[in-house]
């Protein structure tokens, strides 16, 4: 899987970015700690531990912020945040792809039917296509984010306190609208319980299965 290779590449570049950020200010301990965090994250990815991976992603982003606050390059910190986000996303995406690969790999068709791990049904999207689409969208999002961040870092504007207050108010309104939009989206999810048949014999009928 190409996404897996890109994931390791992102982790390596993140380690370099962190090290460069800290070492430019002779922060040896912070640089060592950053490298250790990346190493731990790599181990968590290998052990497929999603919770620890998420935790180390947060820690890595905070390390990027610390590197910037300790005098490191803001562009390097920005790149570090983007790389950490890419590594975290690709790790989770690889795990989702594994589901599909496992389903294809384990199934052996009955005698007489040829082995076809990826059934060539009309309209079926292959794993490769799914992967490439995901990488394209992730690349666009990260590039957009980095360019926006870099523009913000490059442009220096001086505001008065009143204007700052108005901007904060605008940001608050925008945030509220965004949250409202998300909440509206959540409310469109059908309630779990619609159309459940009581004759169901599934194993987790008492668990996450919908109930009327």
């Amino acid at each position, binding site marked *: 899987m190409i996404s897996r290779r890109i994931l390791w590449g992102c982790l390596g570049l993140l380690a370099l970015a962190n090290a460069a950020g800290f070492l430019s200010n002779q922060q040896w301990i912070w640089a060592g700690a950053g490298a250790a965090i990346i190493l731990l994250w790599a181990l968590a990815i290998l052990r497929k531990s999603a919770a620890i991976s998420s935790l180390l992603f947060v820690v890595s982003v905070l390390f990027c912020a610390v590197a910037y606050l300790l005098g490191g390059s803001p562009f390097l910190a920005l790149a570090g*945040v983007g790389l950490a986000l890419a590594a975290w996303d690709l790790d989770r*995406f690889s795990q989702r792809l594994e*589901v599909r690969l496992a*389903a294809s790999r384990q*199934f052996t068709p009955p005698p007489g039917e040829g082995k076809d791990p990826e059934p060539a049904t009309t*309209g079926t999207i292959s794993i490769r296509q799914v992967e490439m689409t995901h990488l394209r969208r992730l690349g666009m999002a990260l590039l*957009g984010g980095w360019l926006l961040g870099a523009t913000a870092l490059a442009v220096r504007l001086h505001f008065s306190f009143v204007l700052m207050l108005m901007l904060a108010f605008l940001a608050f309104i925008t945030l509220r609208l965004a949250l409202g939009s998300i909440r509206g989206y959540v409310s469109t999810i059908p309630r779990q319980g619609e159309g459940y048949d009581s004759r169901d014999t599934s*194993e987790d009928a008492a668990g996450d299965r919908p109930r009327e």
Partner: protein
Amino acid sequence: MNRKALLVAALALSLLLIGLFSFNGGLVALALPLLVYLGAALYFSPGEERLVARRALSDDRIRQSAGVTVSLTIVNPGEDLPEVLVEDKHLRGLEVTAGATRTFGALPKGGELTLQYTLAGVRGVYFFNYLRVTASDPFDLFNLSTWIDSPNRLTVKPESPALRKVRIRPPQTRGFAGPILARQSGSGVDFFGVREYQLGDPIRRLNWKVSARHPRDIFTNQFEQERLADVGIILDARAQTNMVVEGESIFEHSVHATAALADALLKDGNRVGLLVYGSGMESAFPGYGRIQHERILETLARTSPGHNYALERLDYLPTRFFPARSQIILVSPLVPEDTQVLLHLRGRGYAVAVVSPDLVHFEQRIARKASREDLAIRIANLERALLFQKLRRAGIQVVDWKTDESLPLAVHAAFGRVILRNTPAAAGTGTSGGRV
């Protein structure tokens, strides 16, 4: 919005707030990639799902040892779904032997996603109802989970060792030619008796030895007619007679024995009916041939032991279900209270046979009781032997079957000569049949 989205949002918000309160534009800038990522996920998040699922089974009736391939096709007639996780529910009693019950992919407008896996399982009737489809944005931050109806039904029929011939002698037979000796003279192969010669009797049937002793008369041999019989099989599904030891139920052995008997008797051309006596009374009305065989296996597939206070004893057996003076075969571990009912049936003119899986041996074999319980086991065995002796004295055929031994051999010992097929099930050693 799932936990991952909350994590990204919280991280971005933290950087944003710290940057705003500390007047540090750099920190605000660091939050921007996270916000753009979140925004892109929200932009690509799935709207309303309109998916259609088709479920196909390679066979809707299988034997216990066979497998069935389940093919699920999910079609998306609605808008594009960037990422979709399809999970089929695992049914209790069925095991996935190949493939997986979930898959992942993309479903563009008009696209399809196929999931295939193979199942095998224990006897039963299984209903497939729903499968869960979770659609999400490309970054899996905003999910939409729904259940899609894709009904289907699978019957796993019980396995049965092959018996070729079960010799029964009911007092009354049907009018059609068959393999059962009818206790009436007519065309047949077994010698039945001798009578005086009547005009039209073939010369080759004359009994010259008897005729030689009576100079004035001539005698003819008579042969016993062979006809079909009515057979009623009663499967005892009462909870109090069916023991479960360490997950293994003696009822399963009873079911397999019933299936084997029904198979053998129907192959001989007899009319066979089945009555399951347990929490209720379930039946397959008497009939002939392959369709009846399937009907009986279907009934056996869905049956399970149960308790009903009204049916704790066999007193309420619906004898009208069985034609008068027909053959009744009870498959039951038996309890002493059942004796009177069996004797009563025998008294009413039925030919009664009992196939009894040995409950004591079953428990002893699985639970491996300590030596101090040997005395209890001996007493239980003695009680069982006495019970069978009482039944045999009343003319009831008894098959005392130890469940780890071969059923065909046990049936052979009780019912007479049985030709065994060369199957692994018939290759067991030893016999535990009783004497008639």
